[in-house]
């Protein structure tokens, strides 16, 4: 089920129609407050969230939703402004699309997000004090469950698949976000920040996800 938070009735109706025809169950909300409320009662799989909203804006709505659930959020930004994109990613969005959005682009992004929660037949791996369960799709740190969003989890799974090897941002974008050849590498950076905040003891001195300047990221407990 997709929760669509959009204040403009025509856009709400149009996108709702397009998404329904793609086979999604769609719930719509006209304000951020209403969206947060809907999230609580209807447990959607993904949220499509407009940034320009009356009342609490998209960024704040995103933060409130994040506090409630580890749900994937795709931002709709009306401007291609870098500022909006950065602020949206900092607020916790997994991905973004720019208005006027192509329905098939939005559809592709939604599918990609939903595929992140597909489990793999695999054994449980231990990296330092991290326990990664690819089949059960969960991560334990010091035997406690770490609450990760599907994107964060998928990022960790991709990085930890080849410990010690450097993955470029582009490779990560293709593996996790399934973006075609020109993705926005800021998606990776923002998601790495969030992942570190959850799995590292000191996020500014990471043990697991290391930055390789000019190239990308490398996984490896140290």
């Amino acid at each position, binding site marked *: 089920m997709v929760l669509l938070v959009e204040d403009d009735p025509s*856009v709400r*109706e*149009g*996108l709702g129609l397009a998404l329904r025809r793609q086979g999604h169950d769609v719930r719509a909300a006209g304000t951020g407050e209403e969206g947060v409320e809907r999230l609580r009662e209807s447990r959607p799989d993904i949220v499509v969230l407009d940034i320009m909203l009356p009342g609490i804006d998209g960024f704040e709505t995103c933060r409130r939703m994040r506090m409630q659930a580890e749900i994937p959020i795709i931002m709709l930004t*009306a401007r291609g402004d870098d500022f909006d994109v950065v602020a949206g990613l900092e607020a916790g969005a997994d991905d973004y699309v720019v208005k006027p959005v192509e329905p098939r682009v939005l559809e592709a992004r939604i599918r990609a997000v939903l595929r992140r929660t597909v489990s793999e037949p695999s054994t449980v791996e231990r990296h330092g004090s991290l326990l990664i369960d690819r089949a059960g799709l969960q991560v334990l740190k010091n035997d406690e469950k770490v609450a990760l969003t599907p994107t964060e989890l998928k990022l960790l799974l991709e990085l930890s698949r080849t410990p010690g090897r450097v993955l470029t941002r582009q490779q990560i974008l293709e593996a996790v976000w399934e973006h075609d050849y020109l993705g926005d590498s800021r998606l990776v950076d923002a998601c790495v920040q969030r992942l570190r905040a959850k799995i590292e003891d000191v996020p500014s001195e990471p043990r697991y996800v290391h930055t390789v300047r000019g190239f990308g990221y490398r996984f490896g407990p140290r």
Partner: protein
Amino acid sequence: MAAFLLLTLLGAVAAAGASYATARNLLLEDAQDSFMNPLVKDVRDYASRLTVPPAQQDLDDFASYLRGAAVITYEGLRSRGPDMTLVPAEMREALKTSKTVIWQRRTDSAEPVVFVGIPLLRADGSPTGVEVWAWTSLGGPQRAIDSFAKAAWVGVSLVLPLALGLALFTARGVLRPVRRLGAAARALGSGRLDTRVDSRGTDELSDLARTFNSAAEQLEASQAASRRFVADVSHELRTPLTAMNAVTAVLDEDAASLPEDTAVAARLVSAETRKLTRLVNDLMEISRFDEGRNLLELDEWDIGTAVRDSLAARGWSSSVDAVLPSGVMGRVDRRRLDVIVANLVGNALKHGGTGVRVVLSPGVIEVSDNGPGIPVDALPHIFDRFYKADTARSRSEGSGLGLAIAWENARLHGGTIEAANAPTGGAVFTLRLPW
């Protein structure tokens, strides 16, 4: 500057020369008058007492009345006194028939001398033959004049450095600001609307500078307002376009099952919505360039691979002859390079048809085609917004902003795109990036 100095110099010399000439004449006339006027008066007073024809004694008495300053002649007779040989012969001849006082200033000797001849007339105006001759040196006034002239030249030579200094100062104060204003006006004319000039001071030039600055400010403000307007309009169009765009797929998918006219209408609305979306997206992009909101994200890339990917992503790999050597590395914004390549190659495919070539060499990407080329008068405008070289084509496939956007992206990198026609025909676009 040189002309200005010459003018000052000439001015000083002319002023000194003019005052010299005036003073010289005034002094000489004054000296002449003070010699002639009492003499004429004395001659007039004595004339009635003279018996005509006079005897030698009469002439001597007359001369002594005039205190020996003059010589009186009557035909062969001459009063005692100075020699007459100094008096110019033509003057003596002239006085014989003259009814008035005649005088002459001679400067051929060491000192200037003034000669005066006074004829004595009868009551009926006929000459009596008695003539009074007198002369005096003008050496005194001449010396005064000489010393004045010397003083004038000393004055000029003293004033000249001052005048030169003043000229330089004035040139600095006037010519430099004028030159700066000229340069600023040219800069403004060439589109740099943030041009301002230094307007400190209270003189007329500072006033002019302030006027210039406020005019430039208004121009900049009105340009900013019109750009803002384009950005706002595009932004406002986005929301309805998002709603329309969302349902174009529905129209396309269901068109087949609609009545024929409705299907045509549905497909038309759908296609035009997509075009409008592209146009609005391009307008937004141009607006971001105008407002300086586009940023470069530079990274080290293999340019050949980047260009190959750009072509492949659009399905152009087979229709474009690409010469892309590997190992040409460059620091570029990958997505902006993609936009440039897509617009240049897209443009070449659209107008050049077949034979589109993309050739990479270090720092340069050349996109050429076998098409008709670009009309010469269109070349300077080819990167202008909404410019169409072929006016017959009222509306093209693209937004009309593609080349303008490519150009802006190149400029953001600190690079250039040049458009030209190949000698063998066809258009050549040359992208130069400082990578």
